[in-house]
């Protein structure tokens, strides 16, 4: 067993895990934050994307012990307060989801994209940047629209609603 000290969505945790535990397992099974999903286990689908120290990470690819001391944001902690983060609102407004399974990873990747590339994202950039996130329901068209709209909506609101992460 190893002890991982980790801050998730602003809350500190000290969690005992076996060494092979993945970050996504710590998040889902130890902290019971089940909005982060596992779709493939092979780093392809992107349903497990979270932010680790402000960078998007596929949490099925990172050992929990590697996240010792890190600040993690999951989909549950993206919005500040009871409202929606602009990217979440854009996904709803533009029908950027159907079954919802890939959506948390899509939204976390999209916010990371804005953090790195700015608020004016053209369609080609968005499509290329979403290479690591797979959806099987929507055909991506509305996801791309949602990301572009969400990026613009984030303008002036700081990099993310949780700017302190």
């Amino acid at each position: 067993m190893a002890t991982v000290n980790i801050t998730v969505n602003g809350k500190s945790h000290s969690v005992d895990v076996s060494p092979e535990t993945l970050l996504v397992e710590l998040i889902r099974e130890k902290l019971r934050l089940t909005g982060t999903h596992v779709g493939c286990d092979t780093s392809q689908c992107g349903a497990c994307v979270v932010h680790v120290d402000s960078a998007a990470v596929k949490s099925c690819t990172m050992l929990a012990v590697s996240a010792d001391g890190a600040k993690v944001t999951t989909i549950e902690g993206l919005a500040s307060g009871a409202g929606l983060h602009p990217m979440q609102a854009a996904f709803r407004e533009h029908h950027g989801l159907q079954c919802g399974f890939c959506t948390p990873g899509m939204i976390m990747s999209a916010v990371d994209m804005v953090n790195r590339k700015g608020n004016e994202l053209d369609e080609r950039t968005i499509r290329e940047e979403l290479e690591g996130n797979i959806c099987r329901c929507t055909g991506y068209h509305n996801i791309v629209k949602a990301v572009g709209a969400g990026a613009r909506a984030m303008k002036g609101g700081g990099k993310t609603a949780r700017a302190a992460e």
Partner: protein
Amino acid sequence: MSATGIGAAVRRKEDQRFITGTGNYTSDISRPGEVRAYFVRSPHAHATIKKVDTKAAEKMPGVVAVLTGADLAGDKIGGLICGWAVSSKDGSPMKAGAHPAIAVDKVRCVGDQVALVLAETLGQARDAAEKVKVEYGVLPSVVDPAKTQASGAPQIHDVAPNNTIYDWHLGDKAATDAAFASAKHVTKLDIVNNRLVPNAMEPRAAIAEYDQGNDSLTLWNTSQNPHVARLVISAFIGMAPEHKLRVIAPDVGGGFGSKIFIYPEEVVALWACAAREAAGEMGLGPFGGLSHRCAWPRSRHACGACDRRQP
């Protein structure tokens, strides 16, 4: 929006929980005291099972039970059914081979279930599964549907000679023949129905729970039709009377038809809870944590996927 809503975009009620990470998919559910399951699967497309030795696996840390096809057959749990019977042109019923939820004496596809390991954690179950020793007698396989009826092709089910389950004809043969006979041009072509892989983002998962007080079972699974699942698992597979079986389909992460079927893993999950011996071994605890990428190679048609995973 107009008074009727016609032509207007309507916001979906379910989006709020999906975009905030508060959806409730099957694998998000955790029941107190649940044990985790991992299947030992066949690496061969076609083989006899000579022996399944579970002794070493049973001694591994955290292991609660290791169950085999013989255990399942011993408890008289029926096999999976085909829900749509098709008769041949001569009127004979289709010749569907038995499909036990855990293979008994023969495996018929890569990934066929051969044994089930139950342990306190999934990691323990997976480690123990590596200790299950299965002795196979490897048989020739046939993987191209067009070659399944060739002379000398491997025979998959004894009840279906030439690997032919039915020979289905539809329409008026005499009229069709006459139309072709009088046609100015006749073009012949073979039409191959493409392979279907409806890979939803959410892998399949099942959690089963036995309620001792009511002597009833509950199954949470990734299902597009829980009512049919209850009917089939009750009336055809014989797990429990319908009023003693509840099937709950929470949020489903895509299905595209693949989650209409009844799969072996959910049957086995229920059985592991319901079977008296297994329940005794497990202290009647709930059982959960199955999680698979769906779809098995359906040997009867070129329809299905062999992309599967265990968590």
